[in-house]
């Protein structure tokens, strides 16, 4: 029972709770509490999460020595974040920090660094890791990922590469991770990407880059339930996306600068994920096209049947062709419960302007909001078809 009249507030909390509070602070702030009182003198040292950075402290080595290398072995270390950008750190120093963290039973590791290549082997030797987040630029060609088969407990992986050169063997590295469930990849678009894993349930894949064109993307993920896919400017290359994802329930697809020749690929992608329950689709056309093209669905071909689809969000620039495609798509969604249509307007600059229809902008307005369809699907279709004529006029105004 705690009484508020007691003068010393924080000290009423037991040690482990105080340690939790201190673990939310950057380590150099937490360390200052050592002069508060005798009880606090060594309390901060037990914080189970450490954040070491070279940015704010030129005495990185002093700090790391004190809080990690000379850490009391009876204090377990659960999470470590390491940012290092200065070259003043010796080559073998960071591996020695990681080895110490390994001996303390590290579970969560975040590394943000300039040249991460030399320390990758020591990261991958920490077999107690459950989550790993890497962020680094690739500065040399032929960057090869070592094997990750030692990381048997790894559930969550996030890799962000600010790269000029592609990475080799990333696909094999991911395939080796036998317990991986959550994968977040932000990588440079390469010629071909193959992602194959039996355990991944959640995938977030963001690809960027302008110089290299994405041509092939294979997703062979039999356990995948949630997919987020964002592709870069596809720049007139013909691309193929093949997805084998039988358990997928939720998909967010965002395709930028889709070209007329890519229609086939978009249709194929949609039909390979047509069993989803929730779909959010954002398609931006390459605006330099002289004639607007039906980018969503290929004319004259079978339209995939979205028989499980309950929620659909579509963000695209609605013109006559894409509008028809949306209507055809809606006809093939017998179980739709919620629909959101957002009209995106592109500017002629490289930036993509975006706004939703406001009141009075167009007669389509009521349909731009979330609403429940229920039994009124057919009536809604008719309305949509009718307004498509008005909508064309609205389009010309922009």
């Amino acid at each position, binding site marked *: *029972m*705690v009484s508020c009249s007691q003068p010393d507030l*924080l000290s*009423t909390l037991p040690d482990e709770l105080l340690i939790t509070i201190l673990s*939310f602070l950057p380590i150099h702030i937490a360390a200052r509490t050592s002069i508060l009182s005798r009880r606090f003198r060594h309390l901060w040292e037990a914080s189970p999460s450490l954040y070491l950075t070279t940015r704010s402290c030129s005495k990185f080595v002093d700090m790391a020595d004190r809080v990690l290398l000379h850490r009391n072995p009876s204090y377990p270390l659960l999470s470590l974040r390491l940012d290092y950008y200065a070259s003043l750190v010796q080559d073998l120093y960071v591996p020695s920090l990681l080895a110490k963290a390994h001996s303390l039973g590290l579970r969560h590791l975040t590394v943000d660094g300039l040249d991460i290549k030399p320390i990758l082997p020591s990261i991958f030797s920490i077999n107690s890791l459950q989550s790993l987040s890497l962020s680094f630029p690739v500065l040399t060609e032929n960057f090869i990922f070592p094997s990750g088969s030692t990381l048997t407990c790894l559930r969550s992986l996030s890799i962000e590469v600010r790269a000029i050169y592609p990475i080799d063997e990333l696909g094999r590295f991911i395939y080796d991770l036998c317990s991986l469930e959550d994968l977040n990849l932000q990588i440079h678009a390469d010629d071909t990407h193959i992602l194959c894993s039996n355990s991944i349930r959640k995938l977030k894949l963001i690809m960027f880059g302008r110089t290299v064109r994405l041509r092939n993307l294979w997703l062979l993920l039999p356990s995948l339930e949630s997919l987020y896919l964002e592709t870069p400017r596809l720049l007139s290359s013909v691309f193929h996306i093949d997805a084998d994802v039988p358990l997928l329930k939720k998909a967010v697809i965002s395709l930028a600068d889709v070209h007329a020749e890519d229609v086939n690929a978009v249709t194929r992608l949609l039909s390979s994920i047509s069993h989803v329950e929730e779909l959010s689709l954002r398609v931006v056309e390459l605006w330099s096209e002289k004639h607007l093209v039906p980018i969503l669905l290929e004319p004259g071909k079978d339209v995939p049947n979205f028989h499980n689809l309950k929620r659909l969000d579509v963000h695209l620039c609605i013109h006559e062709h894409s509008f028809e495609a949306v209507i055809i798509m809606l006809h093939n969604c017998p179980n739709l419960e919620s629909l959101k249509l957002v009209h995106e307007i592109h500017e002629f600059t490289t930036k993509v302007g975006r706004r939703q229809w406001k009141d009075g902008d167009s007669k389509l307005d009521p349909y731009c909001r979330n609403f429940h369809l229920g039994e009124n699907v057919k009536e809604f279709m008719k309305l949509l078809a009718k307004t498509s004529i008005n909508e064309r006029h609205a389009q010309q105004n922009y």
Partner: protein
Amino acid sequence: MITLISSDKRKFHVLEEVANQSLTIRDVIEDRRGRRRADRIILVTNINSKIPEKVIVYWLRHFLMPEEIAHASMSHKKAEKLKKWEAKFFDTDIDTLNDLILAADSLDIPSLFDGACEKVSDILKNRSAEEVGEISKIENEFTHEEEEEEIPSENAWVWRNEFA
């Protein structure tokens, strides 16, 4: 419906689904499942009197927005809204936060516990040791020599100005 009784004998009636956010209460309910109605009364006497109300408010807000939805498909707007609400919820004096942390710890409510701890650490952030001592009313029982020399030299890297 279950009944929580606080240390000052006040009763709080809460839906079972709502109270399930406390892992301790969930375990107790699970243990007593199938028994008489009287067993649906749970004493939470280790918690300060004004805290149960706050905890229940927190539960109700989060009950409307289950954790999985919060991560998977919650729209950006809703997430912002919840964030704002939480900021307001935790914007109290350090006494209340203290009690909330104790309550969240004993009732085992992870999100409340983390939120309250984070708020306390935010209060302590970027303050000098003297200020921290003042806010939390910690008595400094170090000797003069200890305070002036021994401890600062122990962690010399902490006291450099470059952190500011």
